């Protein structure tokens, strides 16, 4: 069943204004407008406005010329879409699932459902009545395929009862041949092409012949640009998958308090209760929370939100309570908090587990997940991480940091040719080095105010710059592994060589420490 809300934006505006069908502002010409770069543009107009000459897509200035007394209200496409989503869920009363057909339509699957309502005719009547009670202007159609139902709802002849039914099993093409080609849900430019070819109705397309259409539109792969694909979809020769709308329930628990609370220990008690309620809620769903939001509604209308992200799914009330306790330190209760709400906006499946074993293990220490959560709550998200290899031969780029419990990315195995230092400086520090030019071993160097005499040295290990991402002036590096007279082992490099044409004298840097 296809449902088309012919005037969705206007209906919604009227309902939100709490105006009756005839009285109030709706009797005057009104237009819903959007501000564009070229001035306000009319998105939709109510009946009086349409009679006065305002058309969707018109500039407001033009509409004012036709009807100087027209009034305007801002349109709200995002709100309309949200409203449509709610309607999609609501209209699942007529079928097992429904899909959005933005901007202003719905498709409900009523296959093998009609007998529950006493036939398709009565099903349509029921739907029309339900929408009429909500003051929504709808056109309905039932057909064997979604495309045919859409075409009938939008372009079918308006019958007295407002809905049309296309019975299956007959020659659908013949019954639909009177509809205009726009009923194929095609893009505007394709419709223009068809109009120029003189094809106005679906019946005309059948007259052209399949081969000719195939040849004319052979490089159009998208269904919205290829009339032949659309025609096949309408007639059920090609499948047309639809994306159903599935409602998601967010676990939510809240406490409304008889007496506004102003003290921290009472808030802790409420939080304790909420955490236990949430644990029960999540346990019923077999899930664990990854993100939790705690909303505190104050008496004076202020809302305080504290959010928490967990490294692994959990529903342990004590853990949740402890993590939130840190975040509640800076709460200003003002005149008191009257409502507290805990919401798990992201939950992941978490299997039920046996409680007692875990509890006894808890006495011997915390688990890794709990440990990481505690650290990240106090120190911040980026403070706790682990190194993972990255595909690069430059030392500082060949490792990256990621959250500790994420799986390690796939990487190539390392070849143990070269020694790498245990520790690497964040920024290589410039040093003054005595060496035999142009590319001899370092003899001694000065770093952090001390002179180091190089006794043993291995190198150079030459690392070329990554030309695919660095500037052409980046210089190669010659790394030396050295040990000074006291046995301290360092990793130095010379940036560039004399005569490479990428700068003057090469500079030396201290980059890492061996054990």
């Amino acid at each position, binding site marked *: 069943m296809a449902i088309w809300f012919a005037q969705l934006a206007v209906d919604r505006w009227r309902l939100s204004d709490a105006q009756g069908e005839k009285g109030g502002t709706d009797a005057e010409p009104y237009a819903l407008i959007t501000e564009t770069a070229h001035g306000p543009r009319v998105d939709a107009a109510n009946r009086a406005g349409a009679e006065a000459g305002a058309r969707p897509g018109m500039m407001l200035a033009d509409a004012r010329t036709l009807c100087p007394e027209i009034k305007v209200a801002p349109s709200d496409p995002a709100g309309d879409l949200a409203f449509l989503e709610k309607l999609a869920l609501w209209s699942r009363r007529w079928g097992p699932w429904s899909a959005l057909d933005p901007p202003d339509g719905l498709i409900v699957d009523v296959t093998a459902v009609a007998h529950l309502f006493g036939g398709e005719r009565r099903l349509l009547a029921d739907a029309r009545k339900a929408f009429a009670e909500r003051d929504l202007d709808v056109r309905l159609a039932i057909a064997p395929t979604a495309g045919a139902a859409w075409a009938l709802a939008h372009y079918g002849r308006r019958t007295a009862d407002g809905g049309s039914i296309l019975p299956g099993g007959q020659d659908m093409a013949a019954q639909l041949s009177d509809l205009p080609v726009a009923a194929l849900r095609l893009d505007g430019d394709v419709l223009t092409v068809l109009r120029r070819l003189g094809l106005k109705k679906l019946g005309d397309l059948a007259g052209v012949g399949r081969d000719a259409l195939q040849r004319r539109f052979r490089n159009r792969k998208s269904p919205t640009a290829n009339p032949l694909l659309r025609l096949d979809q309408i007639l059920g020769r090609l499948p047309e998958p639809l994306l159903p709308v599935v409602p998601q329930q967010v676990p939510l628990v809240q406490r409304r308090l008889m007496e506004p609370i102003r003290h921290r220990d009472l808030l802790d008690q409420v939080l304790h209760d909420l955490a236990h309620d949430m644990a029960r809620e999540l346990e019923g769903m077999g899930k664990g929370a990854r993100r939790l939001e705690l909303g505190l509604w104050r008496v004076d209308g202020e809302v305080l939100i504290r959010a928490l992200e967990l490294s692994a799914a959990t529903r342990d009330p004590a853990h949740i309570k402890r993590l939130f306790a840190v975040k509640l330190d800076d709460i200003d209760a003002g005149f008191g908090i009257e409502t507290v709400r805990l919401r798990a906006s992201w939950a992941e499946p978490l299997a039920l587990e046996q409680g007692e074993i875990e509890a006894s293990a808890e006495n011997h220490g915390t688990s890794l997940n709990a440990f990481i959560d505690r650290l990240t709550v106090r120190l911040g998200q980026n403070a706790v991480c682990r190194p993972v290899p990255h595909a690069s031969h430059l030392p500082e780029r060949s490792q990256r940091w990621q959250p500790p419990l994420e799986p390690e990315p796939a990487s190539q195995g390392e070849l143990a040719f070269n020694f790498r230092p245990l520790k*690497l400086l964040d920024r290589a520090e410039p040093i003054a080095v005595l060496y035999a030019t142009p590319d001899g071993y370092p003899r001694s160097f000065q770093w952090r105010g001390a002179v180091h005499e190089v006794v043993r040295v291995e190198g150079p290990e030459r690392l070329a710059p990554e030309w695919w991402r660095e500037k052409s002036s980046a210089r190669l590096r010659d790394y030396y592994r050295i040990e000074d007279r006291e046995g301290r082992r360092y990793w130095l490099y010379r940036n560039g060589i004399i005569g490479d044409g990428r700068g003057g004298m090469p500079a030396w840097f201290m980059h890492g420490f061996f054990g």
Partner: protein
Amino acid sequence: MAGASHSEVFASGDEGCGAALALALARDTLAAAATNPLSETDDRRMVLWVQDRDAIKRGGRPYLHGLPADLRHRLIHVEVKSPADALFALEEGLRCRDLAFVLGEIAGNPRALDFTSSRRLSLAAEKHGVPLWLVRLDARPDLSSARLRWQARSAVSPPARWNAHAPGIASWRAELFRARTHPPGTWTLRDDGGNLVAAGSPASETSGSPHHGDLVRAAGGRSLAAV
């Protein structure tokens, strides 16, 4: 649990020997514990490495490709702004039963690291059986409750096997200057393929190794760090 104690390694911030010696001692302790037939053969527990900002500035961060191969995939690194946060992270790490050991690097003598906080760390380490190795960069040996306190500096490495002019395997001059159960001494230690071995050092041979009594047996692969 043997070895589940609090040790301190004092080292200069201008060389990598402090963290390297602490890592070698910690791995040696783990290896000694693994000779227990009841323990797991393959240790997959994570390792925590906490550094405060000053320590990172002086000595850099751990580098994945230079770490011992068995630690590369199980290192958790924590960067903290202040020594107080570092102590918090260390204590939380000691309370976590899924960690093999905890290594901390704190630069200087911060006010937060007084005798009381070091006592807290010692007690947490002993209660939960997670060893703590605290590297103190450029620090005075002040009052502390650490069970073993080492002073580390680099030693001249033995000749490399294939290239006589290249630096050899890492060696350290480790001086045990305060310990609970055995007399102080000085050793030259080196990390020989995962085992910590002591090179012969005449200065300390008479005083004996920390727990075995003589260095000849200590060099046979038994732990110097497990006390």
